[in-house]
């Protein structure tokens, strides 16, 4: 009989499997008593990063407050795939109002809980990047500046995926969307535009801002738990790859999220009251090409008519992030990019 070799690390990552951890270090998801806030049977695409992110974030939030949660949802993929009539995936009290008003609706829920002396009930609002950085930004900024007691989670898949993959202000440069087509001399989304919501959130001086990806679910849970320890306006920005919109394989979601972080294109950090308190170091730096080439939305940068000039511009964005947040120890600088 051949012994099955034991893998101590997942392929291509430094993440330690749950089975090697002590019970108190394991993820909320590994506990069979987890809340299952968003239950199985929903209609998300195979490999959906948003469904994964929402599941981890909400269950972690539920554990943090003994299940006393109300969730508010903006219009978008998460809302649509979770509540096709007459079914719902939500096992928590859940309210969907409009595309652009989730932060204000959450403010209203929090105000109601305060006035009723139910401050043990915590309010989480969720939206995609469109509902956060574009149409919801006015209400979000208002919720931030009033420091309303709401944890707002943006599941960022870098575009309007629910309506058929259109550009949002979170769509990265050069990416193909239905409204930034790969035609003309500068195909894909333009450079020099877009909103960096975590930094805008920090500029509101709110108690807590953090970013995370679905590649590091321990980290995501940890940040939700940290956010839930605090009161006031808190913002969590989670990168959630979208196989449909990114043109990536369904089984590459975690890998792409990891590469986004390891290239420096998506800095993973925490900030309190406008000051960065922790930035997750890049463990094994990779050139942006390794991340881009796995996604059909960047296919026009490679292939028969490659655009190394555009790839270089994207690399410079990653380099700037690495410098801004100090994502790389000096010892790692020799890694060629």
């Amino acid at each position, binding site marked *: 009989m051949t012994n099955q070799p034991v893998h101590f690390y997942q392929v291509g990552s430094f993440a330690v499997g749950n089975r090697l951890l002590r019970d108190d270090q394991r993820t909320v998801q590994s506990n069979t008593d987890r809340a299952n806030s968003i239950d199985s049977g929903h209609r998300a695409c195979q490999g959906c990063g948003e469904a994964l992110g929402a599941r981890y974030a909400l269950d972690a939030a539920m554990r943090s407050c003994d299940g006393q*949660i109300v969730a508010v949802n903006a219009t978008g993929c998460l809302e649509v795939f979770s509540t096709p009539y007459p079914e719902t995936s939500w096992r928590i009290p859940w309210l969907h*109002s409009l595309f652009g*008003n989730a932060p*204000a609706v959450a403010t*209203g829920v929090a105000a109601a809980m305060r*006035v009723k002396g139910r401050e043990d009930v915590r309010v989480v609002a969720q939206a995609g990047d469109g509902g956060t950085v574009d149409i919801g930004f006015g209400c979000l900024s208002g919720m931030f*500046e009033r420091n309303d007691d709401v944890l707002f989670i943006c599941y960022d898949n870098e575009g309007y995926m629910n309506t058929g993959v259109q550009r949002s202000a979170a769509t990265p440069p050069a990416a193909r969307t239905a409204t930034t087509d790969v035609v003309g001399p500068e195909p894909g989304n333009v450079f020099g535009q877009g909103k960096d919501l975590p930094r805008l959130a920090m500029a509101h001086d709110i108690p807590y801002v953090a970013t995370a990806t679905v590649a590091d679910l321990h980290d995501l849970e940890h940040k939700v738990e940290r956010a839930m320890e605090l009161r006031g306006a808190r913002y969590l920005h989670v990168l959630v790859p979208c196989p449909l919109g990114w043109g990536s394989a369904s089984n590459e979601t975690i890998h792409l999220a990891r590469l986004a972080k390891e290239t420096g294109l998506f800095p993973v950090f925490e900030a309190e009251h406008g000051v960065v308190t922790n930035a997750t170091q890049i463990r094994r730096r990779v050139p942006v090409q390794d991340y881009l080439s796995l996604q059909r939305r960047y296919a026009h940068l490679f292939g028969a008519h490659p655009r190394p000039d555009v790839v270089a511009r994207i690399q410079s964005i990653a380099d700037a992030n690495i410098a801004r947040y100090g994502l790389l120890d000096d010892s790692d600088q020799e890694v060629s990019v």
Partner: protein
Amino acid sequence: MLRQIEGSRAIAETVALCRPEVVCAYPISPQTHIIEAIGAMVKAGTLAPCEFINVESEFAAMSVAIGASAAGARAYTATASQGLLYMIEAVYNAAGLGLPIVMTLANRAIGAPINIWNDHSDAMAVRDAGWIQLFAETNQEAADLHVQAFRLAEELSVPVMVCMDGFILTHAVERVDILDQATVDLLLPPYEPRQVLDPADPVSIGAMVGPEAFEEVRYLAHLRQLDALERIPVIAKQFAEVTGRASGGLVSSYRTEDAQTIIVALGSVLGTIKDAVDMRRDLGERVGVVGITSFRPFPGDAVREALRPATQIVVLEKAFSVGFGGVLSTDVAMSLQGEQHVLRNVVAGLGGRAITRRSLEELIATAVRGELPVLTFLDLDHEAVDRERTRMAGTRRSGPSAENLLRDRGTVGVSTSRSDS
């Protein structure tokens, strides 16, 4: 207690007596004095427990109210005009979700041209949103209607908009009897929500509904409004029994018993019309007035009954559907199907133009002579309109009509006027 008080202040104090738990505020004339006064009461602690939230837009104001109401709190806000239009998506949403929010609408014209004065264009713009819309004739009625509005909204799980004429009512200082707390508590029991966000009993509110059930959901909303037609008179009767004062109801009639011509209108202009009717009655003309308090739901049967004595109906309204004519008159016409009334439509008072008793008397006299056209714009300066039409015909680059008309009337820039040739 009888007070000499500004309309807005009377509303604020009455709303406070209704024990609102969440009030969201965004300034827009002419409702601003209402939320200012409520804000001061919350800050001073005289209105408690209540969360007063200064939001960043009317869209947020209604959205905060939606969240608060869905979480079981009694929610209130006030707006007007552009503010109502800015929140319109949330206005529809509140009704669709069946959340009993109460909102004061200080009726004001809609731009462009921007205009802060009174007409009913804003209320008509959300006519189909699913809100109950009650129109107040006086500040006393406006105050009283707020108590009834919370009761009605919460009984039926339908939001209610109390419409009161901007400036004409909101800024008028006059005698209002403000109720006491015990009376309001008697009329308005604590809010018991039909649906609520509660971790102990999780529900999904606002789920997606496709063609398989959407029409049924909308029809249920229609039925709730029809229920309101039953409940509005009952609540008004209870209010009268407790306070000794008639306020609210579906419609009101004045000197209609033997009237051959009846004028139909909404809001504060009813007072001026009644004065004009009194004058014409003295001259032997058989005229009367019907005021519609409940515009949505529209009390078709009650309107039909109230108008039965007359041979001619003149609907006078402070709004119109551009390219067609009256809005209210269309509803009245639908209610009179099968009847033999002559129906006339008068658009008046747009953008705050004064509706004078003299103009109304002339209007009534014309109507009584049978000479009123189907659609009349009261006190319209036809010559000024014709001059602008001529300018537009004469040159392509005739410029903004609003500015041209102001210049024409000598309001601005006479010395720099463009050539009329």
